[in-house]
């Protein structure tokens, strides 16, 4: 067999090992989060911690952080790693994701030498902490999120540290299930090690390791070639998280992405400081996010390994919410990663407009409903825990609508809800509605996909609701002039009345539920692409026919007037579109020496007349849209004093980063849109 064929065989064999680990974890698991939710991932690294392979359905968020964790482990244990050793880790500050994601690193030896690590990162349903499930939008320090495991040798030369394990399990809710999680990971790692040993035997130890190096080198070469094709320059983007769960202030990601030959430098300097809410991440997540998007835009085909990461450099000063230190809680790491991905999506989209895709639901949408299991006494381990993470719609592209309710491109292929038949058997709940959330997709020439609506009725006393989600205030953005998708929304319906379970949308900690309450989960739609007035009216009519867009929205946003038979009225549609176009607020921009930033917020000074015309008040969220912009620039309106009524439109002052982001120069016309109209 020629060398190229052999490399492919080895690569496939490695992916096969990981896919089989994945199948084994699902099929032997004790936790519905794993066997129904699939919230775990598997991967392989080299002896020095570089990523070798992950599986087809595994989540990069889990796996792209593994190299960091492994390197931290090697810092601690160095050459003191032996056959029969097994390690655990979940500490975000040393490469973990959030505390629920427990990583098992299983060293694989060949010919007496450490050769690889088999990695399994599983979301344990509970790791202790303040609320059942451990994740909550209302925490203030990491100790409330459960037990921290810095890189720890849990098994030494085949001898399990039972005392440590007992301590762990005794401090976690549903301890038997936790032991099951551990056993499942252990079994899958053992089987993986057997397979890797077989591959060593088959291909020969050094030939096998050489092939892995070659595969990494080839992935790096492809990535560098793709980066080199992008025009050199620095591309800016800003994205926001809603809130840290306590304060009404948003958190800003400020990215300067530089393309320099065949290198990419992602600089997050200037992003918001770390917070006392759950919306922080450790040091591993920035590269994780950048690499996920870069991989998607530039080289989606080549199987993932560390070579894809090598051309990427990340500048991310410690102390920001994107590189937090003790004791910042890190439960909301999926949310933080999502806004970093969104920033790279916009910045790289400035360079590669054909790749642009609308924004996503903004995180994991962790939802926990938990409480005592009826009829099981007060035994702590007899609580139930329903954990779901509703998918939203995906973003539109320049060629197609987004998809309704599905895992998106930077996410592993997980189930996001449990089968109603399993949830209802395991927990005192009844799923009463599960469907497409109509009118939630971001409008555009290509429409973002719709999110979901799921109603879960609680049937037992003493249950509570925790939610950790974002984009419940600031919606997923559209691109190329497309509109935002609807925000995430999590409410409780009690005796027919809608109740907000927390002062800050999307961040709920232990809200007390009553018997008969309906927990209603509504997830975001994906961002749209392009101007909705350019959407093919047939597509709009079809959307209305299928019930994913209302006829009212077809008229007011798309300018499509439907005839009685489900088709559209061409003449009326033409008139309506002209009318809507004319009603848009177009304002020239001017140049300001500095960007108008107030803490995390970018501000936009509007005259009262302008504000009135757009329909916003002081402090409201608006977006500035330019024909040349990858995405809209989100700003908070600041109402200026009325100056002399010159009759001429007051130009909008934008700083240099604002102009760079929008691709505008002084004198260009921009559209200003009100955001938040879709909050209700």
């Amino acid at each position, binding site marked *: *067999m020629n060398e190229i*064929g*052999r490399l492919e065989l080895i690569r*496939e064999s490695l992916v*096969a090992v990981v*896919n*089989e680990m994945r199948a*084994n974890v*699902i099929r*032997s*698991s*004790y936790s*519905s989060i794993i*066997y*129904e939710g*699939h919230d775990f991932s598997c991967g392989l690294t080299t002896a020095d911690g570089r990523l070798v392979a992950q599986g087809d*359905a595994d989540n990069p968020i889990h796996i792209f952080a593994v190299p960091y964790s492994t390197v931290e482990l090697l810092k601690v244990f160095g050459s003191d790693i032996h056959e029969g050793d097994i390690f655990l880790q979940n500490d975000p500050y040393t490469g973990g994701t959030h505390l629920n994601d427990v990583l098992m690193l299983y060293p694989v030896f060949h010919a007496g030498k450490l050769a690889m690590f088999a990695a399994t990162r599983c979301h344990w349903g509970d790791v202790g902490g303040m609320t059942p499930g451990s994740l909550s939008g209302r925490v203030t320090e990491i100790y409330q999120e459960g037990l921290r495991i810095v890189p720890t040798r849990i098994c030494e030369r085949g001898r399990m540290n039972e005392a440590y394990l007992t301590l762990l399990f005794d401090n976690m809710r549903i301890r038997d299930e936790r032991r*099951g999680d551990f*056993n*499942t990971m252990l*079994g*899958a790692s053992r*089987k993986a090690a057997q397979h890797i040993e077989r591959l060593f035997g*088959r*291909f020969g130890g050094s030939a096998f390791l050489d092939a892995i190096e070659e595969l990494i080198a080839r992935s790096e070469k492809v990535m560098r070639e793709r980066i080199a094709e992008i025009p050199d320059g620095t591309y800016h983007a800003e994205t926001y998280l809603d809130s840290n769960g306590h304060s009404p202030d948003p958190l800003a990601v400020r990215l300067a992405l530089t393309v320099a030959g065949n290198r990419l430098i992602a600089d997050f300097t200037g992003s918001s400081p770390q917070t006392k809410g759950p919306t922080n991440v450790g040091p591993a997540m920035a590269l994780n996010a950048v690499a996920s998007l870069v*991989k*998607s835009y530039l080289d*989606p085909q080549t199987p993932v390994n560390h070579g894809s990461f090598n051309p990427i450099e990340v500048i991310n000063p410690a102390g920001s919410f994107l590189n937090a230190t003790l004791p910042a809680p890190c439960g909301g790491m999926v949310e933080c990663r999502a806004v970093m991905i969104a920033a790279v999506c916009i910045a790289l989209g400035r360079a590669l407009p054909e*790749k642009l*895709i609308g924004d996503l639901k903004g995180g994991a949408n962790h939802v926990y409903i938990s409480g005592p299991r009826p009829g099981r006494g007060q035994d702590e381990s007899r609580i139930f825990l329903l954990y779901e993470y509703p*998918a939203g719609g995906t*973003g539109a*592209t320049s*060629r197609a609508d987004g*998809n*309704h309710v*599905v*895992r998106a*491109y930077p996410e*592993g*292929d*997980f*189930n*996001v809800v*449990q*089968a*109603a*038949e*399993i949830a*209802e*058997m395991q927990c005192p709940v*009844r799923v*009463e*509605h*599960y*469907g*497409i959330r109509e009118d939630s997709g971001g409008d555009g020439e290509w429409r973002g996909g719709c999110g979901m609506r799921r109603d879960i009725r609680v049937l037992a006393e003493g249950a509570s609701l925790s939610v950790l989600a974002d984009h419940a205030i600031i919606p997923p953005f559209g691109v190329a002039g497309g509109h935002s998708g609807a925000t995430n929304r999590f409410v409780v319906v009690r005796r027919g009345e809608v109740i907000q379970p927390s002062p800050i949308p999307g961040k709920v900690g232990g809200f007390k539920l009553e018997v008969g309450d309906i927990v209603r989960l509504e997830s975001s739609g994906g961002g749209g692409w392009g101007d909705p007035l350019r959407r093919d009216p047939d597509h709009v009519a079809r959307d209305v026919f*299928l*019930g*994913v867009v209302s006829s009212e929205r077809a008229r007011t946003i798309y300018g499509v007037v439907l005839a009685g038979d489900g088709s559209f009225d061409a003449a009326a549609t033409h008139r309506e579109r002209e009318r809507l176009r004319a009603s848009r607020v177009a304002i020239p921009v001017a140049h300001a020496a500095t960007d108008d930033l107030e803490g995390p917020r970018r501000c936009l000074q509007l005259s009262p007349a302008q504000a009135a015309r757009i329909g916003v008040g002081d402090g409201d969220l608006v977006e500035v849209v330019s024909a040349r912009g990858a995405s809209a620039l989100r700003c908070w309106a600041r109402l200026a004093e009325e100056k002399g009524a010159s009759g001429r439109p007051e130009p909008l002052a934008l700083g240099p980063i604002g102009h760079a982001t929008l691709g505008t120069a002084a004198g260009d016309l921009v559209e200003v849109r009100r955001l938040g109209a879709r909050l209700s």
Partner: protein
Amino acid sequence: MSEARFIIGIDVGGTFTDLLAYDEAAQRLYSAKVPSLPGAQWKGVLDALAELQIEFSTIRAFVHGTTIATNALLERKGARAALVTTKGFRDALEIGKGRRLTGGLFDTTWRRPPPLVPRDRRHEIDERVAADGQVLTIAEPAEIERLAATLRAQNVEAVAVAFVNSYRNDDNERAVTQTLQRLLGRVPVTPSAALIPERGEFERTSTAVLNAYLTPVMVAYLDKLSGEMAARGVRAPINIMGSNGGAMTLEKAAERCAGTFLSGPVGGVVGAVDVSRGADERDLVTFDMGGTSTDVALVQNLSPRMSHDNQIDAYPLRMPQLDIHTIGAGGGSIVWVGPDKTLRIGPQSAGAVPGPACYGRGGTEPTISDANLLLGRLSPMRPLAGGLVLDATAAQTAFAGLARALGVDDTVALAQAAIAVAVAKMAGAVREVSVHRGFDPRDFTLVCFGGAGPMHGFLVAEELGMQRVLIPRYPGHLSALGQMMADLRRDFVKAWGGRLSELSIAALKTETDALRNQGAAALAEDGIPPTRHVHEFALDMRYAGQSFTLPIAWSPAEKGFGPLRQAFDARHEETFGYADRTNEAEIVNIRLVSIGEVAKPALAFRSQAQVTPTGERRAVWFASWYETTVYARADLPTGYRFAGPAIVEETGGTTIVPPGWTVQVHDSGALVGRFEGSRRQP
């Protein structure tokens, strides 16, 4: 009137329809191969019977492997179907549990394949059953009537009914199904739990929808086939091969057509198991390469692996089926040049019409068969089944065109490269069912059949480092042979169990007895006498707290749970890398496979040849031109050994034995190849 003495096995493939007829009185086997007619499979069946000039009234048994369901799905030519769900669940079919199911990681352009029933034909009805089976809400008759009117107005051709928790209690589902069936007359209505009473509303709904979508197509075909057969005097029942490896009656096939997706390919697996048993081989990978596609499956200890959690195209399917992996490459696959100037194979096939260029029937594009002809592996001198003489000039012309497109001039090297690419694809398919399922292909024998299997099997085995290859007698007809050998089979599942410590053997016995009676009744209904019933039980088991289960064989004669527990622990450790011996184990389901044994031909393919064959010689390309011995298969006596390079020709197949292999003729007539060349790096 002549006596009914023929057992017929028919396999309709993408390219050819194969028929085997066994004359029980004369103990003789006849074969025919005619082109398959897309859109009129029944006609190919009649053509094949006509070719053998078998009098229709002499047919005693008839088993048919059909690709009707598969083709209709892949071409999206199923019925205009509707779905009725529990209130609140009409979108579950489309959004599933939020998974993509068809790749899509890092792919910003990924699009979800559209559901088989669009949103406007998915209807909700106000009914509900709780998780424990308690009926909470019964559908109002008036609402069902309104729904029926809507369905009629939508010109619906088939309906699936899938309610939440119907696997636990299907009273509501059955009631609505019956009412709709009554109101809609001939429109078939598929209830989900009757089809497959397993937990998981999305997968069960998807299975029911697949069934509904395909039922009208299947019914039309079976009506046509049985009508044509009856008109010609066939009195024997027509049985259809099921995906589970057993045959089912025509009525069942129409009702459960989602259980026929693998109807064709399983015939080959059943046939391969049968010939391998005769050749003392127990662990196999079956390699069935036809004109359009290649099917591979893994067989452990003569038992094909089953799969309960399947997906066809983008759609989950819960009907039990053999774990067969199919790729779209076969002997007729077209060789072409991709936009990046690399050589590509298939999935487009020249099919039977016009066929490869060398068939001289108007095909001009180069195919894998043309490549084999250029390399001397197929002979222009020797007619194929049906008398077709291959045209080497046409093959040469086709490859010359390909060579120009690539800017090369050596057509032989190009043909060799095309076959190498095809073989790599095949090897990938074998890895899928072996390596990807945790098996090392080198522990298995590659059993090669189908029109193109014996021609490529040795090369595929080499690619994977497999040391043993088996070529059955009549390799081109093995699928039809399998159809002929197929027993009737019905699968039953009963959700029953609990922790072993809380169960009694007596209670289990009561359940298995009841299930066995159900199986026996079903077989009796299919006309099988009780003496020919075989019932095999398995218990789906797991540790307390787990969700997925492992099937453990169970004999109702057991007196205690001890051996069961041990078998489960051992199986769990072997499969998942650990056993939880201190934890409770529980039974979740009782599974029963009821087999109705049918009279099968006692086929003995013992060679009649006595003398040492001489063989002709011709030049064949194996990295260079080799003067190669060409044997006629019928001339090879039992026990005869020869070394590659060699070619064995017979009706319906050409076996290519590359250098490094030796082949011996087994007592059963099979050719058994062993690699005896130098150790290669697989």
